[in-house]
């Protein structure tokens, strides 16, 4: 599977970009020349120069530094939230899909309740209760999204559980845990990877969106959406201020999309062949 992934050039580019973002985000204090919040009003709206590779914003803060520091809330927090909601959703989905019966019914009704709340409304409600902040948006996200993952994964699990290779494994006496691990999980992984990476995109956009509205991260934390908000005011006089965070978002979201496509092809040995449509050979065997 890894071989197939590496063969796909798009996937390699996407992985490199994502890895780059993560490394930059973690190593932000080490590699950035300035402090993200060091205000220098006399130097506001500076042009691109060797000292400020992307210029400065309306408070004289170095944009490049802020851009890199912004990786932390925009990307890393989102990773954590995604991981949490996928884990909860997948676990519930597996239990629900494999066990069926009463367990399934109970879990599904729980999902119904959670899905009845639109995630944006829940986010706003939590912000109203607990105040603005990235953590609260993430919490809202986990609360609503796990149910969606649970449903999708459950369908996937149920489909694969009814297949004959699982039946065979049961017949010869394989333990349920082994069956889930070897026969069902790898097959559902393709589905999980796809929905997880597409969710990643919407989550990044969501947190940026809320920050743009002023409901996300608290100023003066650097965050792409926040930076877009600040740039909004000078959109016509200093349009370049919008480009940096905007392009940063576009690149990472696109990378995740490409990775998601590539994963789907890499995980399933059938897909590559479908593209070239190998006609199946007839089994004229002489025994």
């Amino acid at each position: 599977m890894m071989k197939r992934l590496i063969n796909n050039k798009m996937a390699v580019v996407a992985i490199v970009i994502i890895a780059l973002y993560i490394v930059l985000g973690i190593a932000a204090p080490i590699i950035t020349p300035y402090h993200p919040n060091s205000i220098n009003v006399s130097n506001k709206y500076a042009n691109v120069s060797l000292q400020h590779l992307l210029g400065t914003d309306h408070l004289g803060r170095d944009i490049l530094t802020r851009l890199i520091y912004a990786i932390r809330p925009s990307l890393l927090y989102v990773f954590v939230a995604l991981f949490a909601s996928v884990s909860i959703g997948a676990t519930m989905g597996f239990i629900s899909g494999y066990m069926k019966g009463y367990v399934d019914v109970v879990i599904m009704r729980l999902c119904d309740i959670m899905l009845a709340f639109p995630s944006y409304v829940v986010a706003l409600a939590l912000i109203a209760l607990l105040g603005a902040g990235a953590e609260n948006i993430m919490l809202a996200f986990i609360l609503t999204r796990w149910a969606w993952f649970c449903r999708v994964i459950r369908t996937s699990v149920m489909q694969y559980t009814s297949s004959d290779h699982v039946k065979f494994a049961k017949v010869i006496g394989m333990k349920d845990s082994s069956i889930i691990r070897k026969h069902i999980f790898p097959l559902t992984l393709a589905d999980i990877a796809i929905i997880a990476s597409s969710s990643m995109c919407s989550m990044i956009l969501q947190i940026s969106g809320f920050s743009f509205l002023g409901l996300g991260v608290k100023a003066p934390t650097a965050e792409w959406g926040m930076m877009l908000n600040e740039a909004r005011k000078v959109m016509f006089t200093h349009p370049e201020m919008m480009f940096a965070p905007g392009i940063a978002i576009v690149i990472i979201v696109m990378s995740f999309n490409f990775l998601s496509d590539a994963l789907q092809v890499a995980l399933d040995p059938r897909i590559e062949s479908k593209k070239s449509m190998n006609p199946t050979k007839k089994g004229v065997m002489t025994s």
Partner: protein
Amino acid sequence: MLNVSVIEKSYKRTHFFRSQKKPIIRDVHFDCHLNKTLGIIGESGSGKSTLARMILGIEKPDKGSVKLDGKPIHRRNTRENQISAVFQDYISSLHPFHTVQKLLYEVMTFSGEVSKDSLKEKSIQLLKEVGLSAAYLDKYPHMLSGGEAQRVAIARAIVLNPKYIILDEAISSLDMSIQTQILDLLIRLRESRELSYIFITHDIQVATYICDDLIIFKNGTIETQMTPQELYSTENTYARELIDKQLSL
């Protein structure tokens, strides 16, 4: 000896807190002795798939039991290395992400074999037994034709040296000429490995070809039981209907 004694198996449906019980199987009693091939002939909807699942031990009858050598078959250790299966849908019965080699290894390591060399040697040996060359080891299921896939499924079924193999419409999805090849393969394996088969099918001609004993299954219960030779003079109306409606060239 495999002893099937299902008194009842129903399909329960809860509809607004009221349970509806619909019986699928009633009063099915038969034995399958070692080294014998028992045919279960039934049309679709007769309940034979449910019966197959109960014989395999992955489903329990509501009333009654299925026992192997006196022990209940739904217990894992009763089934271990004794019973195996080949299913109808060859696409669904092979893990799509595993090569032929991997799926054979999986079953072998399950039974305790560990050394990698002996695993490979044994796999090649098995493939040879079912008429496939060693080149098939690296193939994925979607690259195989129907006949080849079923041969792999049969190879997988005999890995654990079982005494009984349940063949649930194992050849029904294959082309006519391949069906005959696979049937002959099954007959050869039966001789060389002293296997007992329970052959479930809707095709009475095929059943007559391979089975020692026939059970005609209708509406969830045994209509009649006889040897293929006795078919010639049977007076059972349903059996007669099945015989008469068989198409021949």
